[in-house]
């Protein structure tokens, strides 16, 4: 699951491969063949060239929380495939496949956790699950997590990895944007902090709703941050994209995020923010 960019740090190819577990993985950026264990130890950053690989939600959770502290929130009951959608593959089948491939129920994993001893509600999206897209299930899990955070007065931490809305749920997925913003307002009403961590990719309807209005917004170094995809922009407007467009650095320079942090320092950064923000006193 490597993330590829061109030399001017622009074009990006997303490849969500099968969940095979080969011993060796090739880095698409530098061509290096890397021992999988080694890659894992390096938090899925290429030891040779520094390119970022995807992190699954469980891997991301493990990289951020105190060991053994994550306790998943009970999953909500939702009506699946509300539109009876079918393209080349029926949506229900896509869902089943994604569940098998990722061993997750939806594209987000939410639970209680501790980060260096500080209790938080943490939600982590998983790009492997239908592109981390937000449908009713994801919206519901996120809303429940935020309501829990407001009630328990714990900071809410969200790791975004999403291509946008779940097309197969039509307008219902579009309206999840409103749902998660409504839940975000309950955090504000309770005076509870919300920290977003934007990773690769943070785009579309997720960035244009819950991802775009955190109290603190941290970008992972390898993140892609933007509303519209680079291809859509080029095709619709004919504009040439500047170098580094929609990178974490671009977002920082344009006032969109508070910090850009390498993956290895993400937990440290989160702890720095939480230790100032957490707690009433």
């Amino acid at each position, binding site marked *: 699951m490597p993330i590829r960019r061109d030399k001017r740090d622009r074009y990006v190819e997303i490849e969500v491969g099968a969940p095979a577990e080969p011993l060796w993985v090739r880095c698409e950026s530098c061509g290096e063949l890397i021992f999988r264990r080694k890659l894992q130890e390096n938090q899925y950053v290429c030891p040779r060239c520094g390119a970022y690989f995807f992190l699954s939600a469980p891997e991301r959770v493990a990289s951020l929380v105190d060991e053994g502290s994550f306790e998943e929130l009970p999953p909500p*009951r939702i009506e699946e495939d509300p539109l009876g*959608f079918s*393209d080349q593959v029926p949506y229900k089948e896509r869902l089943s496949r994604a569940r098998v491939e990722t061993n997750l129920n939806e594209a987000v994993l939410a639970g209680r956790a501790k980060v260096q001893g500080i209790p938080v509600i943490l939600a982590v999206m998983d790009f492997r699950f239908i592109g981390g897209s937000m449908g009713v299930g994801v919206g519901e899990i996120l809303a429940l997590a935020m309501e829990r955070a407001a009630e328990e007065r714990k900071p809410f931490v969200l790791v975004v990895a999403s291509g946008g809305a779940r097309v197969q749920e039509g307008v219902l997925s579009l*309206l999840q944007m409103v749902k998660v913003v409504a839940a975000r307002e309950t955090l504000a009403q309770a005076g509870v902090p919300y920290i977003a961590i934007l990773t690769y990719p943070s785009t579309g309807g997720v960035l244009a709703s819950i991802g775009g209005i955190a109290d603190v917004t941290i970008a992972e170094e390898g993140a892609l941050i*933007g509303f519209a995809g680079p291809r859509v922009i080029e095709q619709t407007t004919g504009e040439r994209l500047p170098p580094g467009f929609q990178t974490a650095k671009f977002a920082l320079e*344009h006032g969109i995020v508070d910090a850009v942090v390498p993956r290895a320092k993400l937990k440290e950064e989160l702890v720095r923010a939480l230790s100032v923000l957490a707690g009433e006193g």
Partner: protein
Amino acid sequence: MTGEERLRLLEEKAAELRRLAQEHDLDLSAELAVLEQKIAALKRSIYAELSPWARVQLARRPDRPSGLPFVQALCAGFYELRGDRIVGDDPALRGGFGKIGGARVALLFHQRGTTPEEQRQSRFGMASAHGYWKARRIMEVAARLRLPLLTLINTPGAYPGVQAEAHNIAGAIATCIWQMLRHPAPTVAVILGEGGSGGAVALAAADRVLMLENATYSVISPEGAASILWKDAKFAEKAAENLKLTAQDLWALGVVDEVIPEPPGGAHTDFLGTVEAVRQAVLHHLRELSTKPLDELLRLRYKRYRHVGSAGSGH
């Protein structure tokens, strides 16, 4: 001959009869009445059971009632506000104050333009970041003045451009949704034409969402869905069916509160009639909403969106 071709033929005949009657001072009213009845019946049969894809085409017509002319007809004395106070003024997303049925409202609406020059200038109603930052600013003014907020939606989507990204269009859209959810007065959204994804939902987080009969509201364009999911834009028609983007489908899903009927030929055949139908519907909902105390309004608004798509919602 298709129904539309037959319709055109009959309409040409009617025009000819009218011209004859006028030029030669003849009374052809009986003949004309029969012909016009036939035309009306044909229109009904053509438009009654339009396919989703046909409605997509209708919703996108450049002569569809919307934008500034619509607002000027809808309101007594529209006063426009311009500029986001930081970056600039976006002609694709407009707003201001107006009076409807004697009551003050704040308005926000997309401007698509009808001539090619207008369309180019307003980017076919695709608003950029500063358009949505302006919308936020106007919502703030409306909140200070406790004005009900009326939004009129007709956009293919938010503008995908380099400057839009540089000015944080995603954050602007999210902020508009947030601001609408907090608005301290009734809010009504009307989807007049195309309700295209994030650019539409930014203005649609209202207490009541109404749609014209042939308007569409969708997470993605049928063409976009086709090329992503079917890997072939030719499947747009099939995507349109699957996306459940028509007013009728969305009413059934509980997403839309009222479908406002259009004249048989579509809204573009009767601009003033469409304006009047929208005015009546808006006034009806504003009146209903105005009886609710603010805290209940906000509670109901929260509940509506908190549970959208959850098991057990819908009509």
